[in-house]
């Protein structure tokens, strides 16, 4: 059954038509046009399709779009260039091919919202479900620590 739902994506309302089995990933890519949300594995294991819904991370490849009617969705495109996480990733060189990086940026944003001064172990714990095949993990870890410092200086 086709139904119309409204997704507030990066602050803008988008009315979209979805079927019962339409995935949030496909709506965001094909109807909203936020192509920073990417399918890497289709089973929630790589994190490339991560979005924030109401601030909480979601694997959009496993999420039924109908359930997100009215939800406030954030994708990496919606983060400001001067955002602490974004600017820290840029400064630390935490992107090689960059395909997975929007997912890491959003996971890091969620982490620092819940836990402004995470330990290195807490950073690792929070990012363990995201795969960077280029192996940018050391730079990513540095970037998250830098962002934490930037958001809430000691």
């Amino acid at each position, binding site marked *: 059954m086709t139904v119309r739902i409204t997704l507030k994506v990066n602050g803008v309302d988008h009315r979209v038509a979805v079927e019962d089995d339409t995935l949030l990933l496909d709506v965001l890519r094909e109807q909203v046009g936020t192509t920073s949300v990417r399918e*890497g594995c289709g089973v929630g*294991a790589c994190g490339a399709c991560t979005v924030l819904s109401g601030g909480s991370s979601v694997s959009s490849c496993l999420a039924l779009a109908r359930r997100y009617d009215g939800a406030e969705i954030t994708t990496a495109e919606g983060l400001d260039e001067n955002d602490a996480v974004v600017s820290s990733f840029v400064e630390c060189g935490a992107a090689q*091919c*960059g395909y997975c990086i929007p997912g890491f940026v959003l996971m890091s944003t969620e982490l620092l919202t819940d836990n402004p001064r995470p330990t290195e172990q807490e950073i690792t714990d929070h990012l363990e479900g995201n795969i960077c*095949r280029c192996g940018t993990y050391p730079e990513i870890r540095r970037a998250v620590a830098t962002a934490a410092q930037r958001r809430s200086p000691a």
Partner: protein
Amino acid sequence: MLEQGWVGGRRARFDTAGRVRGLVSHVGDQPVGAAAHVAVHRSTQPHALIGAVHTEDALAMPGVYAVLTGADLYKQFGDRLLTGPAFADQPALAHEKVRYVGEPVAAVLAADLATARAATDAVWVDYDELPPVYDLADALEGSAFVHDELKPSSVFGDLRHLRGVRDTNVNYTYTLRHGDAQAAREAGAHTVTGEFWAPPTHHVPIELPCTIAWVDAGRLEMLTTTQTPSYVRQTIADLLDLPLSRVRVTTRPLGGSFGAKMYDRLEPLAAALAWTTGRKVRLVASREEAFLLTTRHGAAVTSSLTADAEGNLVSSIADVRYDTGAYADVGPRITAKSGMVTPGPYRIDTAHVRSRCVYTNKPSAGPFRGFGVPQVTWSHESLIDELAHRLGEDPYAFRRRHLLREGDEAPMGTRMHSADFVTCLDSVANAIGWFEPLERGSGRIRRGRGVAVGVKAVLTPTIANAVLQFNQDASATLLISTVDMGQGSDTIMAQIAADVLAMNSERIHVVRADTDATPYDTITAGSRSTYHTGNAVRRVAQAMRDKLIALGAQHFEVAEADVELTPEGLRSGERTVPVAELVHGHFGARGATLTAEANFTTSWAPYDKETGRSEKVTEHWFAGAIGVQLTVDTATGRVHLEHLAVAGDVGRAINPALVEQQLTGAAIMGIGHALFDQLVLDQGQLVNGTLLDYQLPSIRDLPDKLTPIVVESPHDDGPFGAKGVGETGILGIAPAIANAVRDAVGVRLTTLPLTPESIVTALENKQEEES
């Protein structure tokens, strides 16, 4: 003061901010408009003759445009349907016979992807089963054959003699003979032997392969995720029997590749379908399908290393078998290029290597970061370590004593230059504290250290071209066919050009590969771009500098020798004219462009068929070393990496930050290969082909400390002395880790990956032997 955007500067990658926010768009992000979405029906059989292919039910489904089989395509293209870089053996859709579980048999074109995928389930195939060739042992036993006869392609002339050979699964054999290795082994005082196995693995770039193809005014145009646009253009031209000018291949930045997206992947099928149906087609692989497109070769190595009574290396013998799966892909090249370095970068009196590329009924294996060399490094770095233990020598010092030095001739006959193994080894040993006492632990947790070195030849001969347009406003546009897939090639090429032209590298735009516009470049692979394309870029920038200086000389009315190009402009004595003003004056127009072009081609001396030796088998060498300190939990078998140091001789680092990332990135990938990453097949069926089961290193698998070390021994002919680095860091990871495990708990493992299970099993066996 060094400009960060010039050679040696740590400038950031192009558009890092865009990458971080996901604003860089990739092939799969491009809108396609009205197009047929394609899904393929795949073989359920490892080896079978195809009877009837029933497509009626699929065709009857709403939204299905067409269903095509291998027979349909063969009718149109004949033997041109068979493509491949070394052997023309792989059909875009299986024709007459299937050779692995998962091989494409029929293609469904539909209004959307979901419909196309659903319709593939409605295709039925009648098979007549053939005896399967599951592994190397089956293949070499030689009672069933994956291919009736060998079909070398026209790409490599030296494979011509194999055409039409029948009744074999061995499609290529490389032999290295240097002295009488057998006699030297028998006369030697100490011999260590091993049966080594490195399993098939997959590259898993996070971006999935995607190809869009259409016909435009009688030309076949394509946008595709490929590292090899120039190769793909040739393949498609051959397949469709078109002049090169009627094929256009374009790319976008790749979301990683590591060898997965090169040669023939989705492109021949996409081209054949677009050409046959006249429709625009879009193919995208799911992750499960991507596992079937290509793999890294599983390889078995039976080898020995012999020392005389004084500890000199006198004999290296190896029998190497690469499992190339159902299609040769570039396996024969891997077999030769790896076979020739199987003895390792050591002074050894004699060597005998037989390296074979073997067909089996499995997904095809192709290039993967390291091009087969990690599999033989696994052998030679384990053997020399064991030999050092046997002789009671320090494994670091024993290697150091025997490592090839500048000017030394390797066993395959080529001399070493700009391959500083000794400094690489010294620096990793120092980094991990090799010379400090080690707290080994006494209970359940044991600690050890290990080192390994690696050597690899760069792809030779190859061709690179560059075109530079210098814009009137003193910005520039660089046209090359190198594909940026995360390694940062666009950035370093701009740094090279900017350094020559004394300009800001941010003002140089590197055009994405488009065979209508960017010039031929062999491939973006094998760590060749920095050296080859880098040299073409340096030359084109020099040609442009000469043009600007000539204009400057006219402007100042002085000799060219009296004009200098500086960041402020052209200078002669006290006078300076900004470049933009100079070019504007020359053309009398804003926005005009000056154009220059350059080529850089390397040559080689093909190796002798009998001895496998050549005085110049490669343009240059990659040299690297790994040092690791780790613990082993003897109760669970789990390895924990405390410190891993990775060193590579890069000649000269064009951008040290990017070089370090290549080293650490390769090391992290190598950690996976060492400890858990492998494709598991059961009777030809892939059993762990999803990311729920397939193991990739996560942030949790990092060593506590990871140290990249850039070693620079400049290459005489490299651009500013530089060489590539993409593969150097991965070569020695697995043996360094295994050598450290040996040091920690006294067991020598020869099968990868080093799973906790394999470690505790080895410990149990050792205890049984000792009691």
